[in-house]
């Protein structure tokens, strides 16, 4: 119910929202949880395993129970914490993990079966009959498990990622964080203050009290105003720091648009990468529940949450509230309620010496041992000594003390320390370099202590940054923190430790009983701590129960590790911008538009897009187009854009020597104006890449790499140069992007080339010349990847499109035209030229018959490793050609005709195939055991997947013009 005169909500701005189909009213500043509680809605969810009715437990992101779906136009967002989701006009939400309605969940039957669903029960059953696991048991388990649902539709929302840099990152804006930010900000340091909630102030907004003589919330507002006015301070609201990574890098999630109606281009969330040499962890502490029987009913909440709902949101979660706590601090919740006019039924304090100052019954030395109310709390049973009695109550506020929010300090494997006085883990100092925990996050529980430690940390950081700062602390409450640890209350019925995963004290004890005594075994066996809250409220309690069950102390029992993220982060936020070209850039050729104009399907070649083929009317499939293009090249002339090949400009007196070291063969003796084919090995002796290099000048070469290996070869060259010959007189740079390069191939290629050159060139095969085309300096290479007389013409990229269109027009007058990747592939297979289909990383020079290209006269990369015995000999599969009358396929395996088909009889495999219109047969390239000695043999090609079983002839891989007469024509 709403409490008049309380809360920081804006009562002038009412908003309407929906939950499970019903419309409710709230105010701006409300969370879904506070607004539902204001409307007396206590039942908001169902538990994970037993489908128990559940209500709001906390007021923060650690909420294990109140998880709902937020429904959008196209997608719903599952597992949204009602305690974090702000209400706005038109917000639509619904409950999740139920079969039927929230009130009558059919899966609640699980609760009655709970004796059989104890920890790890599924490891012991569902084994027979075997087939039933996948067909029956598992589908039932999967349907029952899980929490919220994804819609299955693409998430078309807008998300962003960003980087930020500062001197001091302050995480959390309670008293410690605000003080740290003020101190560092006043000293002129660049500060980022990140606050997870939708308002700055942390617990100051929930707890009242005074700082510097003014109400704490006012002090916070004043501090924020001062920070806001500082140009060196950036305030980041709704931003949870989710992970601590190496060298001062932090991940943080900002909820940018989740608290308002969707707007075009407005990101829903932003994932920040914040780099800060210094960071202050000031994110407070999390209150922990007490495990007593049936402690999970709607209406049972954390005491601090009750206080937050009252003071921050002006809501009392109950009309008659009972408090169960073991600390002095939590008693303030009752006092605040009473002051606000809410009835407090009783205070149950297990400490026998607990004081009694509140204007309500106080039962010292008592415990809650049971609760009532199916869909919401109606009463509790209290035991005091030998006596038990009932209290009618609709809200039980519980507090078992506080756990410092140490999570980020564990992200780099820091192990927290057990603090006996707090009965809690505190951060290991220096666990994250540069990060200092202060205030409650470090176990300093008073407001003054928070201010003081926040300032002290900031002063230290500021001084490390070489800046001066003043110490200046306001007065504040400095009461000592006193508690008597209470983890579990014995009684009849199940007592929950992990609300989110339905793990009870019995489960933990059973794990110990069955030998799962390590805390990691217990966690994994019971699933405690593995739910959406990652054990934020249950880890320490479960550890205590385990310690008790195994007869060890808590520190000896250990702790599990917290890992990023602190609070769950959507895949879309961390993957923001990753769709389509945001995942990997697209690279376009200058001929791209011209190819598309001719309706060529563009296909990916690495990051590039290249034309597959150029369809003509009357060609029903790619095959007809491809056959025509192949024949066109063989008979007249074809044009293809080959700009994607890597081009590296190499200069210097040692350029030739450098190439000799990179390539297996020699380039230092290459004639000026000549081009040579080169083979490059990896240092392990297997083939890295191949291509041609041209000598453009005495000390000037141009290397060509394959499209696929361009980046790899550049990196390799940088390594070889910098690691082994940095002092050589050689410099190189990629010019891949600088030149548009087109292949002109076919018997009429020369005629075409001469038609546009200012001075016709009679270039020998494997020659290169500078040419002028239409007033532009270009380069003409006489090289061929098709087996025909071929040229490659290169011009500065800006002229690429114009030249391509011009070449096509000229080719067409000669009966030629463009050809695409499909035809290019057929042409090279007919000629036995290899690509990375053949040199796939497991291939030696010997395998492709190029071992003679490894010069004996010089060292080169890979030379020695290539001599390893495993890379030689008849056991290796060697490159062969294959010829068949029927269709064959790449990926098929080869067998001797008449033998059984099995791995052990496997003779090799096929890497490339095509229908050859030139030869009039199916041709293939492949690798066959001892293949070079088996030319002429018949071999059986089997492709189970495509249903092919064909007898082929093993051939020399060059099918077309084996003497190379056309090339040299």
């Amino acid at each position: 119910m709403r409490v008049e005169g309380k809360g920081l909500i804006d009562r002038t701005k009412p908003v309407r929202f929906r939950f499970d189909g019903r419309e409710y009213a709230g105010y701006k500043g409300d969370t879904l949880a506070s607004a539902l509680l204001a409307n007396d809605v206590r039942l908001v969810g169902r538990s994970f395993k037993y489908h128990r009715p559940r209500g709001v437990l906390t007021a923060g992101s650690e909420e294990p129970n109140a998880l709902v779906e937020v429904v959008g136009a196209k997608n719903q967002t599952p597992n949204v914490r009602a305690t974090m989701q702000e209400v706005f006009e038109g917000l639509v939400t619904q409950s999740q993990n139920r079969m039927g309605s929230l009130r009558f969940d059919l899966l609640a039957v699980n609760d009655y079966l709970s004796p059989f669903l104890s920890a790890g029960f599924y490891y012991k059953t569902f084994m027979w009959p075997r087939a039933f696991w996948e067909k029956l048991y598992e589908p039932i388990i999967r349907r029952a498990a899980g929490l919220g649902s994804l819609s299955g539709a693409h998430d078309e929302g807008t998300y962003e990622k960003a980087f930020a840099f500062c001197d001091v990152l302050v995480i959390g804006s309670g008293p410690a964080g605000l003080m740290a930010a003020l101190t560092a900000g006043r000293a002129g340091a660049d500060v980022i203050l990140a606050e997870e909630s939708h308002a700055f102030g942390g617990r100051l907004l929930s707890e009242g009290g005074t700082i510097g003589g003014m109400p704490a919330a006012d002090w916070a507002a004043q501090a924020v105003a001062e920070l806001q006015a500082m140009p060196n301070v950036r305030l980041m609201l709704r931003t949870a720091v989710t992970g601590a990574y190496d060298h001062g890098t932090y991940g943080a999630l900002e909820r940018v648009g989740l608290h308002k109606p969707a707007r075009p281009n407005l990101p829903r969330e932003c994932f920040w990468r914040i780099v800060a040499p210094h960071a202050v962890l000031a994110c407070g502490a999390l209150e922990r529940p007490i495990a007593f029987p049936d402690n999970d009913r709607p209406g049972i909440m954390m005491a601090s949450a009750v206080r937050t709902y009252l003071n921050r949101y002006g809501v009392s979660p109950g009309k008659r509230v009972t408090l169960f706590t073991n600390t002095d601090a939590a008693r303030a919740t009752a006092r605040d309620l009473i002051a606000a006019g809410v009835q407090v039924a009783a205070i149950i304090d297990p400490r026998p010496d607990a004081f009694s100052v509140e204007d309500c019954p106080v039962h010292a030395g008592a415990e809650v041992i049971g609760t009532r109310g199916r869909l919401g709390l109606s009463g509790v049973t209290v035991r005091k000594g030998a006596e038990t009695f009932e209290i009618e109550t609709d809200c039980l506020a519980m507090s078992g003390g506080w756990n410092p929010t140490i999570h980020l300090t564990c992200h780099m494997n820091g192990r927290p320390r057990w603090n006996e006085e707090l009965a809690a883990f505190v951060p290991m100092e220096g666990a994250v370099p540069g990060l200092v925990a202060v205030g409650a996050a470090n176990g300093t529980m008073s407001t003054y202590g928070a201010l003081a430690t926040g300032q002290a940390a900031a002063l230290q950081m500021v001084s490390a940054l070489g800046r001066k700062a003043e110490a200046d602390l306001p007065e504040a409450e400095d009461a000592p923190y006193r508690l008597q640890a209470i983890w579990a209350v014995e009684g009849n019925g199940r007592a929950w430790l992990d609300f989110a995963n339905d793990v009870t004290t019995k489960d933990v004890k059973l794990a110990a009983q069955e030998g799962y005594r390590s805390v990691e075994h217990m966690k994994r066996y019971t699933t405690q701590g593995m739910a959406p809250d990652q054990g934020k409220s249950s880890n320490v309690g479960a550890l205590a129960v385990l310690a008790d069950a195994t007869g060890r102390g808590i520190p000896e029992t250990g702790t599990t590790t917290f890992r990023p993220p602190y609070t769950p982060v959507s895949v879309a936020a961390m993957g923001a911008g990753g769709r389509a070209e945001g995942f990997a850039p697209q690279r376009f050729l200058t001929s791209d538009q011209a190819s598309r104009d001719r309706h060529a399907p563009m296909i990916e070649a690495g990051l590039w897009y290249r034309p597959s083929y150029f369809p003509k009317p009357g060609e029903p499939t790619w095959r007809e187009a491809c056959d025509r293009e192949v024949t066109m090249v063989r008979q007249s002339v074809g044009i293809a854009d080959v700009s994607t090949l890597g081009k590296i400009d190499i200069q210097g007196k040692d350029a030739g020597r450098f190439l000799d070291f990179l390539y297996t063969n020699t380039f230092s003796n290459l004639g000026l104006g000549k081009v040579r084919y080169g083979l490059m090995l990896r240092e392990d002796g297997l083939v890295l890449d191949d291509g041609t290099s041209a000598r453009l000048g005495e000390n000037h070469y141009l290397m060509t790499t394959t499209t696929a290996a361009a980046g790899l070869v550049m990196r390799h060259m940088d390594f070889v140069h910098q690691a082994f010959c940095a002092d050589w007189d050689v410099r190189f740079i990629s010019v891949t992007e600088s030149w548009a390069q087109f292949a002109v191939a076919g018997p009429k290629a020369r005629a075409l080339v001469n038609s546009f050159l200012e001075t016709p060139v009679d270039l020998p095969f494997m020659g290169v010349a500078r040419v002028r085309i239409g007033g532009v300096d270009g380069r003409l290479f006489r090289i061929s990847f098709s087996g025909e007389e071929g040229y490659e013409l290169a011009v500065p990229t800006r002229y690429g499109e114009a030249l391509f269109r011009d070449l096509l027009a000229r080719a067409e007058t000669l009966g030629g035209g463009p050809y695409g990747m499909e035809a290019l592939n057929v042409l090279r297979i007919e000629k036995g030229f290899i690509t990375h289909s053949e040199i796939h990383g497991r291939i030696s020079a010997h395998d492709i018959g190029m071992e003679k290209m490894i010069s004996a006269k010089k060292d080169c990369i890979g030379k020695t490793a290539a001599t390893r015995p495993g890379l030689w000999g008849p056991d290796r599969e060697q490159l062969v050609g294959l010829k068949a009358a029927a269709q064959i396929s790449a990926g098929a395996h080869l067998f001797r005709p008449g033998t059984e088909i099995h791995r052990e009889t496997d003779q090799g495999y096929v890497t490339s195939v095509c229908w050859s219109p030139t030869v009039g047969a199916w041709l293939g390239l492949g690798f066959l055991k001892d293949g070079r000695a088996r030319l002429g043999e018949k071999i059986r090609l089997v492709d189970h997947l495509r249903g092919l079983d064909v007898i082929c002839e093993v051939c020399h891989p060059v099918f077309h013009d084996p003497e190379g007469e056309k090339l040299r024509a």
Partner: protein
Amino acid sequence: MPELIAKSALDGKSLTLGGVTLAEATVGPIHSVAVFPGGAKSTAKGLKSLGLAMPAPNSFVEKDGVRLVWTGRDQAFLVGVMPPDLDGAAITDQSDGWTVLSLAGGAAVDVLARLVPLDLRPAAFPVGQVRRSQVNHMNAVILRTAEAAFEIMVFRSMARTAWHEMESTLQMVAARAGKKI
């Protein structure tokens, strides 16, 4: 004789959103100047005619609209003029290899902060400096020409992706505008 018409990757397009202008810039010739071992002196002599000297790492020098931009160890890009005769360095034409995007206006830093993993605070990246880094997944050379103005060089073939990335970032930054972050 073919008539070869020059074309830039983005046809010189530009876009203004939320006070930030993104445009394809024309910067003239770009040549890599890579100094050979022992070639520093003669390179310096050659550059004298332009009134420029090899820049320190991460910076560029500028005179009469001509820039010499550090791009690596013993390497700089000469931008805006054809290179003089130089001994002691390898000169390679890079004019067609890059597309230059200019990004200027109030929130230019906010736009870049969403794409570039660099510390963009003025003290860390002052005007007159250059960074070799990335725009999202693309390698880039980024010059800071004014407090809120940058020139960003990307590989020409990737210009369309670069534009797309920057345009959608501009849209998001504009949609957020009005909100102090």
